Structure formats: C-alpha cells, structure tokens
C-alpha cells in the first residue's frame, strides 16, 4: 500500500473516530436530547395529573363567568404536578367556613338585590324584613340543591392523564354548568323573593321598581347596540343615515336582558357583538337590505346569518331572562291579588 493512500485512510478513520467521540460525548448531544425527550414523555405518561374536583367545584361555580374554567390545585396539597414533575399551577384550595359557600353566596346576592330594590323604591323596615326572610328561604333551598351536587365531588380526585379521569372531569363541568344556571335563576320568577314583592310592595313601589329595571335594561341594550354599531361602522363604512336607521330598528327590538346580571356576565366581547347580530337577524331582511348598498349587504347579510346561528349559544350564556323580569312578574301577582 502506498504512502498517500495509507495517509488518507488513516485520516479518514481518525475523522470518523473524532466525530464518533463528538457525537457521543458532547454535553448537549443529539442522543442526549432524544433520551431526555423520551424520559420526559415516559414521565408525562406515568406521572398522574391529579385534580381534586371538590376543591374545583366552588371556584368554578362562584368565581368564574359563563364559559371560563379554572383548575385549582389541591390534589397534592394544593400543587399540581405534571409533565415529569414540573409545577404548572400552584393555588391553594379555599378554606371552608362552617356554612356552605353556596348559602353565603346566595345570601350575598339576595342582600344585593334587596339593596337595589330599596334604592329603587324605598323600603320600610317591615318590608325589608319580609324580603330578607324570602331571600333566606330561597338561599337555603338553592344551597341544599347545590350542596347535594357538591357532595358527590367532595374529596374526589381524578387523574387528568387518564381517559376515565377526563370523562369524569367533563361530567363535573356539566354539573357545574347546571349549577351556574341555577345560580343565575335563583331570584327569578318562581322564587319566594319575587312572589313576596307582589305582596310586600305597594303599587307605587312596584311601579318604581319596574321603571328602574326597565331603565337599566334599556341602557344596557343601548350600550350593546352602540358598541356593535361602532364595529359595523368600521366594517361597512356606514353613513349617518344608514347608521341611524339600523340603530333605530335595533333599539326598538330590545331583547329580554336579565335585569340582575353578574358584573362579568357580558364581559365576553363576542357574546355582546353576536347578541346584537342575533337581534339584527330578526329584522326583515328586505327592510335591512334597503338601508344599505348592495356591496354593504353582502357583508351585513353574512354577519346577520352568523348572529342567527349563534342563538342557542347566546341563550346558554344566561344573559337573557328565561321568563319575565322580577318586577313585571311581581306586577302580575299584584294584578291577580287585586282581582
């Protein structure tokens, strides 16, 4: 074998050897990365992601708005561990007082309602006392229902990395959603508070209360329409005449917005916008089409279709009265009483 060839062969093997060393011994080598990945994957599969449903029940029922969910720790002393031991959320569960949180929340909501009634029509001490008793009765009935559901989840831990655990979490979400709906309706028609309004307040007070609720609802609707139209203004380049015409038909079609809403009930801008588009979709298409140009209608027609399609979702959000506002319901009672 000649010298040049020998030299080249030696070179080649030394290169391969060096590369082998580099690939094999580099601190952040590819093999190491792959091994680390595999280990993390295995750990993620093996490491249970435990959620305490009891801890999560109250936080999701009372502290979150319609569509939002929070997963609080509590499965392992308030710490959630997943993906190979990495802490992704650390929150302590609520400390429980002697009374049911459902009862406390319902009482607080009822007290707020009485304050609002008082500022709308003025209440005597005797009237206030009667309404407080009605609230207490409604609150206890509500708390009993909620506590029955909560009891099913007390101390119940599920592994979110397991299909059975995920299934249970979905069932839990449906239960919480039902309880949220019940919470929204706690002082709706059929509640003792609303029934008591008809027998406790006089005609003048009821009229004042009705007026206050109507005014509040009208203002809320006015704000929703104004906001949605500002967006439509930008999208469609409406002129003053077109804007005013659409505003007029929308204001005239005020939907039965819930008089007593949680502050966050309308926090979702998509909900606000689609609510207005849903109502706009109820307007005769011919009338609407005559208001705008053909070019504008192509987009507006699509938007109203979108609003129409969102109806069932909007109704699920609980921002619309299921049946009758409390004051108008009470008016019905007082009419029946006078007959």
């Amino acid at each position, binding site marked *: 074998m000649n010298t040049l060839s020998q030299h080249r062969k030696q070179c080649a093997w030394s290169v391969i050897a060096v590369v082998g060393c*580099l690939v094999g011994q580099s601190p952040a080598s590819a093999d190491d990365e*792959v091994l680390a990945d595999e280990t993390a994957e295995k750990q993620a599969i093996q490491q249970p992601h435990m959620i305490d449903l009891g801890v999560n029940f109250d936080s999701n029922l009372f502290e979150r708005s319609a569509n939002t969910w929070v997963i609080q720790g509590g499965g392992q002393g308030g710490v959630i561990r997943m993906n190979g031991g990495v802490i992704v959320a650390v929150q302590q569960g609520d400390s429980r007082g002697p009374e049911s949180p459902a009862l406390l929340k319902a009482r607080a909501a009822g007290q707020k309602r009485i304050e609002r009634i008082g500022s709308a029509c003025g209440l005597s001490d005797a009237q206030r006392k009667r309404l407080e008793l009605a609230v207490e009765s409604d609150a206890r009935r509500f708390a009993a229902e909620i506590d029955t559901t909560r009891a099913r989840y007390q101390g119940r831990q599920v592994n979110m990395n397991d299909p059975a655990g995920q299934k249970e979490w979905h069932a839990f979400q449906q239960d919480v959603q039902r309880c949220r709906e019940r919470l929204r309706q706690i002082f709706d028609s059929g509640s003792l508070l609303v029934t008591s309004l008809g027998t406790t307040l006089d005609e003048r007070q009821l009229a004042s209360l009705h007026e206050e609720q109507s005014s509040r609802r009208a*203002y809320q609707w006015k704000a*929703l329409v104004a906001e949605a139209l500002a967006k439509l203004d930008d*999208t469609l380049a409406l002129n003053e005449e077109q804007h005013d015409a659409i505003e007029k038909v929308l204001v005239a079609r005020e939907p039965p917005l819930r008089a007593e809403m949680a502050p966050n009930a309308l926090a979702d801008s998509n909900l606000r916008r689609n609510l207005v588009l849903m109502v706009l979709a109820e307007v005769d298409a011919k009338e609407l089409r005559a208001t705008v140009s053909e070019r504008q209608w192509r987009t507006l027609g699509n938007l109203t279709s979108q609003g129409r399609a969102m109806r069932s979702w909007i109704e699920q959000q609980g921002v619309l009265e299921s049946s009758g506002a409390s004051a108008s319901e009470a008016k019905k009672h007082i009419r029946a009483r006078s007959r």
Partner: protein
Amino acid sequence: MTMNAPRRMQTVSLWQLALVTAGLLLAAMPLGRGEDAVDGQAKQAAKRDADALGWLLKQGLRQMVIPQNQIQAPVLVQQQNEQQIIQHAKHLEQTLEPVLASELEMIRQACDDLAPTARKPILSAGRTALKTAARGMAERQMTGRQDAFDPRLEIRGALVKALGTVGPEHVAGYQLEQDRRTARQARAARVRIVAKVDGQLDLSAAQREAIEADLAKHWDAAWVHVLVDPGLINNQTIAPDFAAAAIEPHLAAAQKTAWKDWCRDAGSKLMGRRFTSWNFDGQGLQGTDSWWTR
C-alpha cells in the same frame, strides 16, 4: 423507537454530518495510485487534508458550543430581520385590506360624482398607503418599537391627500363623514363606559345620565379604546379609571369604596400599552369594487 429515528436524524448537527461525510469520502478514495506516491506529493496532500480537517473540526466544535445567533455576522442578522419584517408586512397587508375597502367605500358614498379618471389615482394611493401601513405595523411588532402608530390614520391621510388633488369639495365630503363617524364612536364609547360602571356599581338612572354628560364634557378622543375590550383582569372587567374625574364625583360613598377597589384590582392602568388601533376583526366588504377601476 421507530418514531424516534427521524427526530434523531434532525438533531444531529450539520457540522457533524459534514465531518462524517469528509471522513467517508477520504476513506473511499481509490487506493491503486502507487506510481504517484512520491514523498513531496504525499506531504503536500497530507498538509492540505490536515488543514481541511482542522478547519472542519474547528467549525464543528464552534457550532456545538456557541449558539447559532452569536456566530452569525451582524449584517446577516439584519438581513434576516429585514426578511422577516417583509414577510410579516405581506401578511398584515391582507389584515388591513378591509380597512382600505371601508375607506374607499366611504369616499364613494361621500363623493359619488368622482370622475372615472380621478378614481384610479385614489385607489393607487390607497394601495401604496396600505403597504406603508403594513410595513409600519410589522416593524413595530417585530422590533418592539413603542411609538404611537395608527395604520387607519396612515391610510386615511394618504386618501385625503389624493382626494385633495381632485378638488377640495371631495376632501370636505369625505372629512364630514369621517367626523360624523368619530362622533358616533365617541358616543358609543361613553355609553360603554357608563354601562361598565353600572354593571359593577349598580348606578341609578340619574347617575348614569350624570356620568354620561360629564364624560361628554371632559371627553378625550383616546378613550374610544374602551370599544376594543381586552377582556378581564383578575377575573374582573377592566375599570375605566382613565375617566375617574368624570365618574367619581357622581358616586355614593359605598360605590366610591367599591370603585376604588375595582380600580386597584382591575384598573386599565394595569394593562399597560393599549392596542386599540391594532385590533382588526378581519371582516370587511367583500370583493373588489369595480367602480374604482371603471
């Protein structure tokens, strides 16, 4: 294991591959060249190979220990950044297209007697402004520039300039519609502010009326950002604390306490920079209006 094989290949550095390839090529060289094997040639070849190997090893080692972005020359980094801005600007042009379509529609409504010869230059000015606005947005988003920039105003400004060459009456017509729209937006923003406060603090009808009037009296055009709601802070709607001077005087004592708590926990000041004019919902007038090219 089969699943991991491609990933393993991807994670091996290009330099490591180059070294392996160089080694294999050298090993595969024909061996039967004994007649050329004079010492001088062998030494020269050995030196060349050693130099090449040394360079390859040096680069390979550098590549393994020094992050990619640190060994690139600054000029190359600048070129890459510029390329990214150009690509992002192209994407933003599509996002801003509805803004231009809307402005052109407003001009058409306000100046329907615009001569066909005047339309094309206006459309062209609008298209150029669209590109400039997209570029401006992309630069700010990619480089973190914090100066005020409203792409709508960029586009409107260019259209006004182009309309000015046609005639002042056209500018006046377009400007009138703009002013009316601005006034409508301000009204909508005021009502939105009052509705937010009402939702949180249970205002009376008289309070709603008084606050709305006070907001109109002390109105700041920047407050229209309330129409672009960024969501919740601490699970609360964002308090319009920027308008406190028009709100606070009309609140009862208990409401004032609740207002202060609300502002502390979820005041708009906690949001930092506002992206009001950056929010485009993507829906706009559909198709190109042939009137502009007729």
